[in-house]
């Protein structure tokens, strides 16, 4: 009658790893969905100032970013050390801001145009002269909503 003999002993059975890929895939999809790839390479030094009264930007796709700062180390020989304006992937002058804003308007659907916001990401060492120039250009372009990008400081 050894036919129905129970197996005894043999230690703990190995944990099934069959569901491991599923778990990993779940995590993978989560990170794939949340990942936002940087669309511009920074050509300027960009240490943002800190402020406590900050608001979050709800929809990043409505933002057009203007970077201001001194050129990064590799660019210094070519573009000098004075703070400059970066629009998209190149150094520009403040007179190009209007065109830049217009291009953003062009690519946005009509009902979202009033919600467009211009994000000024300026370095702490930038001078207000340059920022004022940008602001004047934005006023001319009728892009009144602006956001001074800052890090959040906890008080």
């Amino acid at each position, binding site marked *: 009658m050894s036919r129905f003999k129970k197996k005894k002993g043999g230690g703990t059975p190995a944990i099934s790893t069959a569901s491991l890929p599923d778990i990993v895939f779940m995590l993978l999809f989560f990170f794939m969905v949340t*990942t936002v790839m940087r669309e511009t390479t920074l050509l300027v030094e960009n240490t943002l100032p800190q*402020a406590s*009264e900050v608001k979050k930007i709800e929809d990043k796709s409505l933002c057009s970013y203007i970077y201001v700062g001194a050129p990064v180390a590799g660019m210094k020989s070519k573009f000098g050390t004075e703070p400059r304006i970066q629009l998209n992937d190149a150094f520009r002058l403040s007179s190009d801001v209007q065109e830049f804003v217009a291009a953003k308007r062009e690519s946005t659907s009509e009902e979202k145009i009033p919600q467009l916001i211009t994000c000024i990401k300026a370095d702490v060492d930038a001078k207000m002269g340059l920022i004022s120039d940008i602001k004047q250009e934005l006023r001319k372009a009728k892009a009144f909503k602006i956001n001074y990008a800052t890090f959040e400081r906890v008080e």
Partner: protein
Amino acid sequence: MSRRSLPEINAGSMADIAFLLLIFFLVTTTMDVDTGLVRKLPAMPEEEEILDDSQIKARNIYVVLVNAKDQLLVEEELMDISQLREGTKAFLDNWGKDPNLSDNPQKAIVSLQNDRGTSYEMYISVQNELSAAYRELRDREAQKKFGVNYMELKGDNKKEIRKMFPEKISEAEPKNVGGN
């Protein structure tokens, strides 16, 4: 001819591939949210239009000047940035008591002027302190009336508080005084 069934593909390495991708996305993910101070720029003045601010009484304007050396001149007196918040609050929350300060918060205007040589960091700190002054007053009023902070209010209640302390920060046309 014997029909052999196709051997099953070994899925054992699936987890490894998935892990590889997972680690890639883990490394590239940045979860930063964009934060910042939101402001609204005024419209460009018309050519012929002459700005007439003589109708606003001087007591209702709180003049904040920042020079090229990042020094602060508030109502013609040198001030440290740490005192600006309290100063602004006192100005707004005066209700006609002190003849040098505002009549009431609705009429009060903070006038900010900076030099072209002012650093951006200083400018942001000043803007932040002014915002903070308004926010603290709004919070106090909201606490008194509704028992919650201003940011937690909804709809009409929020509007009511905002109407009580409207954030009027006026920025003068930029000037170049410091000479940079």
